[in-house]
């Protein structure tokens, strides 16, 4: 019985992947194959990194039943600060990154404190934050564009890992995947729980390892793994782990599921709300550093509206704005869907206004499909 539920669940995860693959197939056909070249795939993933980073932080906030509208402004401000340190002050790049991330945490702390300890609705707090952080950015940069950035930032934004490293990375990742799957299975067997038949299990492991290797080979066929993609992968793994495996993660879902019940279950709502907003501030400032690196400069308009892309990615990835539902992996797939649309339509020379209209329609459609399948599940 438990197994049946698991398969259902996987089906929904796969549905999003199926949607993504269909989008890719459509674009491959409409662009006469230029969508599916290694070069374009590599670009596509690099482009999606920025929104993915924001979506990873945002999805935690959304699962908790809150919203953060200040993300785009944190991106802009963090990007501006790191540029000021690097270009104006000539500070050590690692130190400037460290201080910027710390300031991102503090911006998240600001949002979280007002939300958790002063009970101001997060929509209002972060709407205020959106104006405040953008205002600070304009103030400290005096409205100018700051650049060019140093070498390390160029590497962070546009660098690639050597192909040999790509292979090593693939092997390490494959070993980790096999170990985790096998260990999980062994533990379940120890408790006499139901597991997949050995054959299916092996097929599943081989399939996921094969996918990984194909992906790395495709990236290597161009220039190797983009550095930002590697950083994103680390954070994706980290936050998937936190949400799925830790008490902290479970508490986030509980707060979003029913705040009052969570309080009576002895969960420290205020503290967790504060932490989640801090994490989101951290991820947004990380996104700011990568955006500035990629553009090789900080401008006052950087990251404008990025919070909406991040929210859209979370929602396309199955998160519910009512709280309690959502997944980190889903949010990243959502971000890749959005980037695929951008990338594919640009290749087709679709005019900008059409791109915007189509993305809007797809957002609505995705949520509609998600809700109808959910309703079916319930009735």
């Amino acid at each position, binding site marked *: 019985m438990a197994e049946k539920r698991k398969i259902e669940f996987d089906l929904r995860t796969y549905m999003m992947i199926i949607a993504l693959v269909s989008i890719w197939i459509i674009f491959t056909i409409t662009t006469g194959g230029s969508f599916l070249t290694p070069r374009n795939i590599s670009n596509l993933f690099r482009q999606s990194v920025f929104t993915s980073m924001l979506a990873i932080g945002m999805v935690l906030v959304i699962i908790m039943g809150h919203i953060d509208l200040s993300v785009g402004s944190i991106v802009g401000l963090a990007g501006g600060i790191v540029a000021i340190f690097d270009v104006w002050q000539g500070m050590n790049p690692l130190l400037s990154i460290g201080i910027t991330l710390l300031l991102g945490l503090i911006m998240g702390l600001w949002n979280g404190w007002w939300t958790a300890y002063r009970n101001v609705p997060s929509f209002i707090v972060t709407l205020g934050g959106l104006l405040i952080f953008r205002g600070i950015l304009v103030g400290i940069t005096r409205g100018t564009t700051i650049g060019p950035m140093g070498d390390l930032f160029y590497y962070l934004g546009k660098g690639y890992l050597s192909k040999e490293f790509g292979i090593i990375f693939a092997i390490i990742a494959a070993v980790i995947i096999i170990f985790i799957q096998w260990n999980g299975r062994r533990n379940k067997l120890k408790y006499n729980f139901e597991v997949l038949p050995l054959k299916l299990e092996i097929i599943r492991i081989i399939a996921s390892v094969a996918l990984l290797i194909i992906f790395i080979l495709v990236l290597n066929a161009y220039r190797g793994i983009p550095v930002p993609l590697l950083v994103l992968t680390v954070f994706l793994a980290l936050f998937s782990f936190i949400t799925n*495996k830790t008490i902290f993660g479970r508490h986030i879902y509980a707060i979003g599921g029913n705040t009052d019940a969570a309080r009576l279950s002895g969960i420290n709502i205020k503290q967790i709300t504060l932490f989640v907003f801090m994490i989101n501030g951290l991820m947004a400032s990380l996104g700011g550093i990568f955006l500035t690196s990629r553009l090789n400069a900080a401008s006052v308009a950087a990251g404008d509206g990025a919070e909406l892309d991040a929210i859209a990615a979370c929602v396309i990835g199955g998160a519910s704005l009512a709280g309690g539902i959502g997944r980190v992996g889903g949010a990243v797939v959502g971000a890749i869907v959005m980037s695929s649309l951008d990338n594919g339509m640009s290749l087709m020379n679709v005019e900008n206004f059409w791109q915007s209209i189509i993305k809007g329609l797809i957002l609505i459609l995705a949520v509609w499909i998600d809700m109808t399948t959910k309703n079916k599940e319930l009735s």
Partner: protein
Amino acid sequence: MPDILLETKNIIKDFPGVRALDNISLKIMSNQIHALCGENGAGKSTLIKVLSGVYPAGSYQGQILIEGQEVNFENIHQAEANGIAVIHQELTLFKDLNVAENIFMGNEIARAGYINWNQMYAETQKWLTKLKLEDVKPTTRVGDLGVGKQQLIEIAKALVKNSRLLILDEPTASLTDNEVELLMDILRDLKNDGVTCIYISHKLNEVFEIADYISVLRDGEYIGGDNKSSLDEREIVKMMVGRSIENMYPQKNNQAGKEILKVDGLTLSNWDNKEIVENINFTLHQGEILGIFGLIGAGRTEIANTLFGYWPGQKSGNVYLNGNELNIDSPREALNNGIALVSEDRKRFGIMPPMSVKENITISFLKRFKQMLVIDQNQEIIQASELVNQLRIKTASLNTKIVNLSGGNQQKVILAKNLLETPAVLILDEPTRGIDVGAKQEIYGLMKNFAENSMGIIMISSELPEVLGMSDRILVMHEGKITKEFANQNKNVSQEEIMVYATGGKIDG
């Protein structure tokens, strides 16, 4: 011989994999109050949805006849146009709108879209008088009224639509005894005015008080029905559960042990410095079930919440746990000290709807599964499934979302959640509200077992039979004070005695 107002013929309604209604043929006589009884999942709600057009014609088999004419409702509005109105268990009023706006919601008195407020207020006043709500004004905000009065506003809302058939689904689930009496009076008045009622309730004493005719459903089938005068309570219960329940309240075979909890001079006031409860003193012993009875507003829930570290206002007085002064101000500290609370409002304070049965059970004590940084999810499954088995929770799997369970099973999950680490003091606030007879009896059985294993249980309840049947001692509260303590080891206290003190009859007597 009265006329048949509504008749169903061989109604069958299938859901994927389940037959929810199986050949239901039922006659509702006009000018009668027809009670519909059955456990949760018996098909009562489904039947109502068929009758009121929620499930459109074609989605079920069989016929519905109103005064001999076949009707096929496509939607709720068509049912309403035919005089059928449903008052759901969960009130559907708009709390921030006033009484008149609510009563005429979707039915506003208007010309060319322009609302005639004066006429609407005048009409509302008429209904308020009729429903004996003299102290409510048409402009009163509905959220400022008590639940009982809101229930009556809901009835007014149905009557405004010229309803001939009023379907009430568990109307008294959250009403106090006085409010129930008032509702009964009004239903009788309405009957005299020619309104027919279908009255759905778990509470058999109410059913016997008000109904003319009683029908019983079980597992989607019509089991039987008869005039009230030819039935008795035991028979109905037997028809409902398919077996006879000899002893609703199990006999507890232990003596109270040493004192574990002592409340000394507890006074609570809210932020406006208004006193909610005053100078409360009581003790709780191991293995004892202490019943606290009082009408809504007596301050029972506030005491429970305070013991659980969840009182936002001011407090004075002391609480001692095993002789040591207990100073807590969060549920976490209460749980860590072995005090558990099952709240009266399962929806608001109990379940976490998007989460699974397992996750709902383990959420309060996840620390016990912590290994390094992670939750040991295998251990979690083992311990959760032990509780599911022990409490006989009916669920497809541990991963089923809790919202898909019946009310009684949801309540058992909330109970399980508080038993993951065996508490010394278990506070149950309205433990059997809104659940069916079978599940109630199981919960009573569990309470007995817990007490025999020397847990101290505080049971707060508005249901007198349950307080009398389960408690070893009974505290009666009235307006924030304990007005009387009864010893009840022999279950010989009478309902009348308790009601006298609960209504403040003889405080000094």
